[in-house]
């Protein structure tokens, strides 16, 4: 939005300040790229806190009995860890950071459809996170219900639930507005010639995700409002003492929170679908299959929420239905894995940093997906419900899936975002240590779960000691790798060498503009005349 853009050579978006100084360059800018980075920094800050809480939990579990904290502190720690990681990190994660930064560029637009609304969404996000954090300090102590806020405990407990629940509601509002913005952007701002079937896979994934954000979030919004009503006005919706039904809360909660898993994983799959063709120097295999499986996941994902409640006493018919649908939703996910592997087949693979993250993503996603089927089957679920197995599965999908894809995308688009290149050998070292630590951290949880160790306890029987030691040590190794990665990227922003326009040889629009992009991305809006991912 510069006034003199015709007169001078276009500056990059990082240099173009719009006359604002200091922090106002960022918090008043409606540029989608700056907003993407605002999200990146705030999400990373929360992620540090979430990781610290996670490490504290692993330290508590390094030996039976009380190690560093008691039962109540442990309950609060896993609740706050969950709330921060789910609502503040993983759900906004890829859509708000890379969706914001890359969606307009990849469809050939200058910005999102509603730039001011976009900035407002970030402010709402910050307001929500402040509410969530205030629950730690004000009133009756940090919340201790787990991130799921299950009724009736969530309105019976004396801890500080009000700000946490209200914060989650406000964050949902931010998520809805972001999704709305992306849908309209994709419909209205595609460059001339960019038909739907020429759209790269990442925008497709962001588009599918945006629909889930839009259609699922209101349900959890109203559910959280009802919990607030229970706490403040003592209404009785979910209170058995007043005729209410706590199971109804679980239904309403999971109607959103299961699709929310696909809010987390769909953009991750999209990012992986960008990285793999670029580093295989090959057109993506089965473009249409990937696109339609994205939409299929977004659609079927709505009808599987009951598999979180197999032991809550639903009817047999409901159990069978939800179980079958859970198996069906695995099919489009598996199609994507086959497509990625087929893309690599006979490609010219370079094992550069983003590719390593993408390849390890496929591995952890496979483990997470297959253990998901174990939990989706009714008989095994009864045995494994609420054990460490669930925690392992969940982290393989949500942290393994989304986290690995997030770091892969970060390394993939880093040269474009900052115009700098990081030290690749340190990046590889960080990845390797992270990966080993990650496996050591979460793999033992499957064994513990099968042996019967319940989740969410600060203590355990002595026979579970061995795998827990491996898991706790794995956490420390993983954090070491993570710290190496972050320091390496920070150093690159400060002192990294200048990155070329297209360091990886990618084919999409973002690689045809300067690094970092100019304020308006394109000197003139491009016309798209060939299919995406074409390598000569």
């Amino acid at each position: 939005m510069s006034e003199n853009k015709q007169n001078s050579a276009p500056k990059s978006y990082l240099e173009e300040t719009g006359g604002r100084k200091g922090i106002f360059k960022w918090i008043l800018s409606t540029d989608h790229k700056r907003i993407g980075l605002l999200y990146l920094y705030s999400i990373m800050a929360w992620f540090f806190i979430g990781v610290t809480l996670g490490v504290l939990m692993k330290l508590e579990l390094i030996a039976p009995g009380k190690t560093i904290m008691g039962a109540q502190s442990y309950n609060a720690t896993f609740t706050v860890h969950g709330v921060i990681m789910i609502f503040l990190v993983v759900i906004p994660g890829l859509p708000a950071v890379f969706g914001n930064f890359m969606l307009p560029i990849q469809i050939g637009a200058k910005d999102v459809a509603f730039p001011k609304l976009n900035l407002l969404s970030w402010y709402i996000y910050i307001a929500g996170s402040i509410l969530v954090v205030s629950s730690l300090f004000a009133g009756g102590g940090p919340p201790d219900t787990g991130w799921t806020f299950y009724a009736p405990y969530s309105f019976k407990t004396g801890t500080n639930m009000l700000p946490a629940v209200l914060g989650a509601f406000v964050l949902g509002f931010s998520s809805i507005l972001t999704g709305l913005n992306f849908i309209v952007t994709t419909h209205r701002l595609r460059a001339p010639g960019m038909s739907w079937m020429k759209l790269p896979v990442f925008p497709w994934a962001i588009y599918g995700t945006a629909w889930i954000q839009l259609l699922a979030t209101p349900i959890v919004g109203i559910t959280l409002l009802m919990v607030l009503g229970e706490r403040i006005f003592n209404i009785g919706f979910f209170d058995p003492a007043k005729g209410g039904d706590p199971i109804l809360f679980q239904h309403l909660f999971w109607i959103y929170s299961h699709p929310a898993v696909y809010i987390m994983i769909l953009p991750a799959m999209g990012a992986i679908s960008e990285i793999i063709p670029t580093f295989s120097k090959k057109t993506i295999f089965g473009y249409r299959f990937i696109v339609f499986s994205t939409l299929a996941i977004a659609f079927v994902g709505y009808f599987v929420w009951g598999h979180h409640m197999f032991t809550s006493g639903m009817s047999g018919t409901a159990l069978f239905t939800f179980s079958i649908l859970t198996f069906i939703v695995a099919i489009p996910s598996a199609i994507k894995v086959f497509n990625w592997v087929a893309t690599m087949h006979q490609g010219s693979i370079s094992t550069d940093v983003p590719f390593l993250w993408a390849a390890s993503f496929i591995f952890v996603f496979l483990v997470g997906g297959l253990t998901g089927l174990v939990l989706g089957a009714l008989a095994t679920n009864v045995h494994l419900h609420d054990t460490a197995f669930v925690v392992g599965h969940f982290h393989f999908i949500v942290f393994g899936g989304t986290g690995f894809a997030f770091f892969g995308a970060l390394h993939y688009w880093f040269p474009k975002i900052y115009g700098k290149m990081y030290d690749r050998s340190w990046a590889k070292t960080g990845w390797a240590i992270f990966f080993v630590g990650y496996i050591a951290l979460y793999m033992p949880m499957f064994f513990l779960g099968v042996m019967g160790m319940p989740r969410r306890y600060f203590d355990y029987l002595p026979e579970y000691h061995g795998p827990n030691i491996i898991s706790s040590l794995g956490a420390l190794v993983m954090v070491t790798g993570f710290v190496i990665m972050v320091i390496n990227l920070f150093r690159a922003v400060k002192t990294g060498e200048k990155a070329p326009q297209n360091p990886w040889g990618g084919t999409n629009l973002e690689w045809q503009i300067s690094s970092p992009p100019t304020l308006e991305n394109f000197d003139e809006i491009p016309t798209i005349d060939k299919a995406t991912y074409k390598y000569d």
Partner: protein
Amino acid sequence: MSVVHRDDIGSKLGMWLFIFTEILLFGGLFITYVVYRYLHQEAFHLASQELDVAIGTINTIILLISSATIAMSITAIQQKKKKLTLALIATTILLAIVFLVNKYFEWGAKFEHGIFPGSEYLDQLGFGDVLFFGLYFFMTGLHAFHIIIGIAVLGFMYYYVKTDRLTHDNFQLLENGGLYWHLVDLIWIFLFPLFYLIA
């Protein structure tokens, strides 16, 4: 000022999507209503007879008229009749306030009889009554909150038309505001029979 990107169709699309989320928001409550009505049919039937159908009907008519006036204001602005547009928006806001006043008296009468969430009297009546009136206050309360937001939105529209930021060839914002008002109206159209009429 920079070149302002304007896309009326995109703006309308965004508004419709937002309306969709609002309907889903209330959808969660409608589901809750259906579940508890199914479980407590007799009590819901008796409890609904406690509500004043006359006030409910008057409020329904008020909202329907207000929907008509806001729709007329959108036609008026296209015909460059600024004064008429302003008068119609003002009428809509006035009707919205009358609706809230009615609601205040209706709620007040219930409170006087000791019928409000968490009251001892209500707890004695049994599960069905607790849930019926819990839903009644929660849903009409949330709806009233939307009316208040709607009044604020229409207030801005009035100001924008008055200061000529909205004109006959740039009235999408007014149309979006009108859409929001129709949504508020629509939700009431469902609330009214669910609480007052079904027996």
